[in-house]
Each structure stands twice: as structure tokens, then as C-alpha cells.
């Protein structure tokens, strides 16, 4: 197969990758987007197999076989484990990029084919690849709670980390000058593996989604570097698409939390949890499911605000039952989705979709907020920070400036959570002490189950 034909196949593959992401702009075309992605990858793999320099298929067949064996079960994880699966996957991706770069370096070293440019590209690929690999493994560990999730900090941490990185970069630069100074190469590898670990341990477990997105971006960039190494435009474009995606998702998350990249990466957020708690005593009104179901029955509009607690409790199916009960009574029910509710972008959307709640009932923060003052009941299901009014007015609060869902403006607020413990940001939520707030203490799944039972008539006779 001529090199030009392979390049043409790569061209088609690139176009398909672009369409794949374009079609993600609408849930109606999104599955077609996955189809395009699969086709693009098939063309990419098919085209590469036809490359003239391929002489043996044995080893790649082993790789394909084993990869499929591991990959298929990895796709069965429950939705709650999606973040750690993604992180694990990034680790694989970074590893692959790193290994390819390593092998290329030594092959070209042996054949005397190294140039400044090639070495530079390889160093970038290897640095990003191995860093992504160990960093993602750590992130996966924190999310799965194998590794301690709290930020692990020590004196001069940032200085130590940055000087490690600077050292790796310095040796990399020297390598570019003198590509045959081969003792430097394993050092670069070791430093980037180490830096990946050290970069992640001071970051709190709950910041992992942002970190995963950033690592996704790095994985993309290492594919770009591989494209420069191999002079392959498909790698460059696909890598750039990937890099952009990771970058934009992390920007969206940071913006929705009103935090900067630097704060996420070096801020050791989530560490001061205990200290921030105040010990004032205010009164809280708690209600029973019976009371709550009566309030709901008399409402004509209800906005349900789900949060991380709904995910933990796996309460989405109960929430759907509740939605149906209320809708049956002619009550207007909407779901208010905060961009960083839960622990990954779009977390609530997937959960509610899993429970077959039609996605046109899900309303984004900016669209629902103007409606909140006319809303009869705001039902907060395991959300906390994303409805904390302190973000609007308390300049001293760590979440000050973060856009929130204005649950407090509804006529009645009902909040389901187990305790008075704070959420991810570790701060108290004055919403729970407000006059128009009723607390429904308990596990979200159980409480909503009770509400549904009341509404569906089991409890009606009472």
C-alpha cells in the first residue's frame, strides 16, 4: 500500500474525528458521533496496518486481543465509578505515548538518526506521557479511595515539585542540544514519572475531576508530540482535539467553582475543612416525609436541585418516581442543573438520564435562576455548595463568587441530606437555617422513597 494511500485514509479518519465531536453538540446526534469516532479509529488502525514498514502482525494481535479482554469489562463499571475509570484510562494512554517515545529514541539512537527536532519532540512526548501515566494512576487511586483522598502536603512542596519539573526540562533541553547524550534520557523518564505522582498528592480527592480533565489535555498533547515525532498529521489533529477538550472542560469547571487553575493545582483545597466550621448555634426546622409530601402536593411548581448526595445515595430512580407522582398531579417539575454539581462535569445529567428523566426537563443554572422567585418548592437532593447563598454575599467564604442556584429564593426550600455536615468545600450552609427551609434528614434514596410512598397513596389514608 503506497504511503500516499495511507495518508488519504488518515485524512478520512481526521474528518471523522472532527464530525464525531461536532455531533456531540446535541443529544440527538451524539450516538452518531460515537459511530463516527469508532469509524475514525478503525480507519486510523486500518491505515496504519497497511503502512509499508509493518512486517509482522503477531505482536500487535496480542496487544489487540489483551486490550479488548481488559477493555470490555472496564466499560461495565457503574456510573459512579466513571471518573476513576476515565483516570485509569488516561494512565494507559499516557503509558502508550511514553513507551512509543522511549522506543523511538533508542531505535534512532542506535541507528544514528536522532536530530535536534526529533529529540525535542520525543522529550515532550515522553515527559507528557509518563507524567500523565503516574498522575492519572494517583488520581484514580484517590477517587477509588485506595490512596488517601485528603491533600498530602509538606513544607516547600510547591518549590520541590517545580524544581523537579525544572530539572526534567533542563535535562530535556540539554538532550535537544546533544541528542546522543543518552544517559540523560532515562533521567527525564524517571523525573516525569515522579513528577506525575508529586503533582497529584497535594490535591484533594474532590478536585480530581478538574485534574482528570487537565490530564486528558496532557494525554492529547503527548499524542500531538508523537505526531511531530512520527510526522503524522492524524496524530497531531486527533491529539489537538483531545487537548482542547480537556482544556475547555477544566476551564468550565474552574469557572463554575470561581477558582483558578493555580488554585486547583497548588491550593491544597479541602485541607482546611475542619478549621472553617463555625460553632454558632442556630435553629434548624426539620420535617417528616408526611409534612413534606403535603407541601409538595400543594405546590404548583417544584424545582428539584440534585447534588453529589443523590449520586452517593444512587437515588436517581427514586427521584424519577417522585417526578412522575408530581407530574401526574399537574405540578410543573423541573430539574436545576449546576455545572459542577456532583463530582464530574455533567454528572447530574447522566444520572438523571439513567433514570429515564427526559432531558428537556433539565434546566441549566442560568436559565432556572430567574424563575426561582416564582417557584413554590425548591427540593434540594444532596446538594450543598451549589446552593450555598454565602457564595453571593459572604466575601470571606472560600466559595465567594461561585455562581449558585438560587434555591433560597423559592417560597419553600426542602433539603434532603443525612446530617448537618458540610459538603465538598467544607463550609457551613446558611440555607439550612433559613426561615423558609425545612430539612429532611436521612439518606436521599430512603427519604425520597418515603415521599413517593406518601404521594402514591400508601400514606394517603393517614
Amino acid at each position, binding site marked *: 500500500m503506497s504511503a500516499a494511500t495511507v495518508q488519504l485514509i488518515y485524512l478520512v479518519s481526521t474528518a471523522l474525528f472532527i464530525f464525531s*465531536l461536532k455531533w456531540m453538540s446535541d443529544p440527538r446526534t451524539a450516538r452518531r458521533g460515537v459511530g463516527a*469516532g469508532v469509524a475514525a*479509529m478503525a480507519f486510523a488502525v486500518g491505515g496504519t496496518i497497511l503502512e509499508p514498514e509493518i512486517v509482522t502482525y503477531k*505482536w500487535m494481535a496480542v496487544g*489487540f486481543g489483551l*486490550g479488548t479482554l481488559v477493555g470490555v469489562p472496564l466499560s461495565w463499571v457503574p456510573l459512579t465509578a466513571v471518573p476513576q475509570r476515565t483516570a485509569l*484510562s488516561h494512565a494507559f494512554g499516557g503509558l*502508550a505515548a511514553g513507551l512509543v517515545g522511549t522506543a523511538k529514541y533508542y531505535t534512532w539512537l542506535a541507528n544514528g538518526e536522532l536530530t535536534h527536532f526529533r529529540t525535542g519532540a520525543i522529550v515532550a512526548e515522553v515527559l507528557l506521557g509518563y507524567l500523565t501515566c503516574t498522575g492519572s494512576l494517583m488520581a484514580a487511586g484517590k477517587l477509588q479511595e485506595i490512596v488517601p483522598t485528603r491533600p498530602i502536603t509538606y513544607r516547600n512542596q510547591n518549590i520541590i515539585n517545580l524544581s523537579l519539573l525544572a530539572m526534567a526540562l533542563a535535562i530535556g533541553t540539554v538532550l535537544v542540544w546533544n541528542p546522543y547524550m543518552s544517559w540523560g534520557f532515562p533521567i527525564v523518564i524517571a523525573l516525569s514519572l515522579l513528577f506525575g505522582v508529586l503533582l497529584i498528592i497535594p490535591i484533594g480527592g474532590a478536585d480530581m475531576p478538574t485534574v482528570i480533565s487537565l490530564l486528558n489535555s496532557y494525554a492529547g498533547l503527548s499524542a*500531538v508530540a508523537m505526531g511531530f515525532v512520527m510526522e503524522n498529521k492524524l496524530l497531531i489533529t486527533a491529539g489537538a482535539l483531545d487537548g482542547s477538550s480537556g482544556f475547555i472542560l477544566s476551564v468550565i469547571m474552574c469557572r463554575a467553582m470561581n477558582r483558578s487553575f493555580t488554585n486547583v493545582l497548588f491550593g491544597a483545597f479541602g485541607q482546611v475543612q475542619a478549621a472553617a466550621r463555625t460553632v454558632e448555634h442556630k435553629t434548624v426546622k426539620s420535617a417528616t416525609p408526611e409534612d413534606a409530601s403535603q407541601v409538595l402536593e400543594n405546590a404548583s411548581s417544584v424545582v428539584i436541585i440534585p447534588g453529589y448526595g443523590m449520586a452517593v445515595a444512587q437515588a436517581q430512580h427514586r427521584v424519577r418516581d417522585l417526578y412522575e407522582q408530581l407530574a401526574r398531579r399537574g405540578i410543573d417539575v423541573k430539574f436545576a442543573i449546576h455545572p459542577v454539581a456532583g463530582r464530574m462535569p455533567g454528572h447530574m445529567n447522566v444520572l438523571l438520564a439513567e433514570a429515564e428523566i*427526559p432531558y428537556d426537563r433539565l434546566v441549566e443554572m442560568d436559565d432556572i435562576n430567574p424563575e426561582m422567585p416564582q417557584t413554590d418548592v425548591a427540593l434540594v437532593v444532596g446538594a450543598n455548595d451549589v446552593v450555598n447563598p454565602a457564595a453571593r454575599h459572604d466575601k470571606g467564604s472560600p466559595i465567594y463568587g461561585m455562581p449558585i442556584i438560587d434555591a433560597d429564593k423559592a417560597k419553600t426550600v426542602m433539603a434532603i441530606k443525612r446530617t448537618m455536615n458540610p459538603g465538598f468545600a467544607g463550609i457551613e450552609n446558611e440555607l439550612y437555617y433559613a426561615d423558609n427551609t425545612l430539612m429532611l434528614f436521612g439518606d436521599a434514596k430512603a427519604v425520597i422513597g418515603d415521599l413517593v410512598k406518601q404521594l402514591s397513596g400508601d400514606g394517603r389514608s393517614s
Partner: protein
Amino acid sequence: MQLDLVSALFVFMLATFIGLDVIRRVSRLLHTPLMSLTNAISAIAVVGAIILAGEEHGTFSTILGTIAVFASTTNIVSGFLITDRMLKMFKKRETVER
């Protein structure tokens, strides 16, 4: 060689323009599936891995190549499958209400 670098930079720049634009218009509903889709796409590194595993440049290269093919294939398979699994859940009103 240096000209090739510029040519590659050209492609990179254009692809980044496209990437930033396209991603910015991904539906907010689908950010979780987007993460796993791009995760699968980042396994494009398989292209480099296949060449390593298929060339004959000595055992070292072949071993690294095979591991890399394995790692990327894992990503491709699980990434696309899980994305599709999630997307299947998104339904519009009409199809949901019975």
C-alpha cells in the same frame, strides 16, 4: 526537517482552532460522555504503537510496542463502549413518556 516542523505546526494550529470551537459547542448535558469519548480518541497513540509492534527493530522495541498496543486498545474499547452506554440513556420526552 525544519520546514516539516512548520508544516506540522500549521496542522496543529488549525486543529486546535477546530478543537476549541467544536468542544465549546458540545451540549452541557453531555460533558460526562464527552470525557470518555475524548478519552477513547486520545488512544490514537495506537498508531505509533502499531508501527513499533509491527516493525522489526529488536526485542526492546517490540515489547514496548506490544504493551503500548495493549494499553491503547484498552482505552479504545472501553472508552467507546462506555460512551455509547451513557448516551443510550439520554431520551427526549416523547420517547420516555408511555
